[in-house]
């Protein structure tokens, strides 16, 4: 049989597939025919190969600096994800907690698996459509980034939170917006024109993370604390319509 010396017996040549000449390297084989080695040489090379392999393993044993393992729960404080890491979806908010999202539905259309559901409402003050609820289903999201790509208003971003595991399936359906109301653009426009700013801000209604439609109709489960919603009676229907 013979021992295959991987360093020596590689051959290079040119073959053709169709009419295309292709440079190939051919896999080494054990020497055969006139080149074949004696049994003793084969045995010597074979036994030597075992020790060469063992040298690699022992080398790592005596060099602990090469260890790459991270002790995960212990290094939580220092663990930093890359800035483009796709953790969890969230809406971009400014310092006053106003969001960029105006509920234009582009992300819902782009989403390949219906993980985003957006409800709109018409604002009674400036008569514009605005976001009522931005529902994101973590349980069906595939993190394909299509929503961020489709967003024309730069309203979405990924957080670096990767610890998404929960004990209750209802907790995987999020309402992303803090409030139902006008986006930052509409507020700034009203401030510029000094046109009914106070009235516009008064139309904002708070939204809780676990309001709106959730799996199992959001019902109470034994042993699981009840979800905190903004309006437990009828939390899915928008106020003004």
């Amino acid at each position, binding site marked *: 049989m013979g*021992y295959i*010396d991987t360093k020596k017996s590689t051959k290079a040549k040119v*073959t053709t597939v169709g009419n295309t000449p292709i440079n*190939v*390297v051919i896999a080494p084989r054990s020497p055969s025919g006139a080149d074949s080695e004696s049994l003793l040489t084969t045995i010597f090379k*074979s*036994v030597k190969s075992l020790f060469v392999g063992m040298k690699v393993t022992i080398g790592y044993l005596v060099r602990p600096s090469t260890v790459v393992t991270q002790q995960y729960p212990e290094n939580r404080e220092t663990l930093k994800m*890359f800035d483009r890491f796709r953790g969890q979806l969230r809406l971009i908010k400014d310092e006053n907690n106003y969001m960029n999202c105006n509920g234009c539905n582009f992300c819902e259309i782009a989403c*390949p698996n219906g993980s985003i559901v957006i409800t709109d409402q018409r604002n009674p003050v400036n008569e514009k459509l605005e976001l009522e609820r931005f529902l994101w289903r973590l349980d069906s999201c595939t993190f394909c980034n299509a929503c961020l790509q489709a967003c024309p208003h730069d309203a979405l971003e990924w957080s670096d939170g990767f610890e998404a595991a929960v004990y209750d399936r209802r907790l995987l359906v999020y309402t992303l917006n803090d409030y139902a109301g006008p986006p930052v653009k509409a507020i700034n426009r009203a401030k510029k024109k000094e046109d009914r700013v106070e009235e516009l801000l008064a139309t904002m209604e708070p939204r809780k993370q676990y309001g709106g439609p959730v799996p199992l109709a959001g019902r109470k489960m034994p042993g699981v604390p009840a979800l905190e919603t903004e309006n437990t009676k009828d939390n899915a229907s928008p106020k003004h319509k």
Partner: protein
Amino acid sequence: MAVKISTLEERISVPAEGDNPLNTQEYFINMGPQHPATHGVLRLMLKLDGETVREVIPVLGYIHRGIEKIGEHQTYRQFVHLTDRCDYLSAMMNNWAVSLMVEKAMQTQLNDRIEYIRTIMAELERIQSHMLWWGVLGMDLGAFTPFLYGFRDREMITDIFEETIGCRLTMNYIQPGGLMDDIHPNFVKRVKDVIAYAKPKIDEYEELLSGNVIIQERLRNVGTITAEQATSLGVTGPVLRASGVALDLRRVAPYGAYGQVDFEVAVGSVGDCWDRYWVRVEEIRQSFRIIEQLIDNIPAGKTMLSKPAKKIILPEGSHYAQLETARGILGIYAVSDGKSENPVRIHMRSPNYHNVWSVDAMTRNARIGDLVANISSLDIVVPDIDR
């Protein structure tokens, strides 16, 4: 080689062939669907005579998710992210195949920046796929150490993906008309670091596994398929090249930036497990060579040529594009009616589906222990078989 189509029941009821001096009885045994050596939910029905394998019948469908059917209800841009879930170890190449098909149909001309980044990313993906395969092969044959080494080196490359794209496995990066994001400012430096780090590690792989006489004896002259058998079974990728056919689409029909780079195609001479093993290890080296030639001169330019809001409607008719993934030729075939955003039909010619049938030709009249080496050397990703 004639192709015989028969049901599972018919194949089971075929009586034993050949002389049978010991008057032993043939029996069937299920390997899988839950078996660590089948790399997923692949079920192999083995017709055994003692330890000798008389026939291997792959039974598919345990992870069928209907990706092709779902694709009929999605736009081409949305369909890209589903191809990540087929052959998840060459996710980037799968994305590229869909993009290539759309760009070919729309006759989009891409700039050099997109082509260069795509090529570099695809080669990084090929390296990490082969590194993982190398570790798993060691583990299948009873050596646990390579598994850890393979994963350790692969992590360096997935870190590059995570920094630029944000994901490590299912990336959805290559889009019709360009790339989802520009490369991260650290990208070039990180790739160079990985090349400097990983190239000596390949020599370490050689010392640890390739040079090991036990591994050589486990792989050599085991599971031989000839070039004729391989071509008639439709086998592609490293499995075909190990049989001596130098069919590599990167060379034969260059796409991306492969026409501008210099590299050699690794081929085998016999077509046994050893050749398949060596071809893949050599492909890691050649991929590093390709990246080294491209990484320093990525030209400037836009990275997305089509606006995400613009609808992609392919011209009426059928469109096809194929490229070389880490496992073989992946072809995407789509039929468009010329009116809607969704394809009428999508079909994927997946490399693993065609490769898996060669396991019968390899293993006939060999021992059960060799079957594990054969499956491992095929480098099967089961979700790509069922889709």
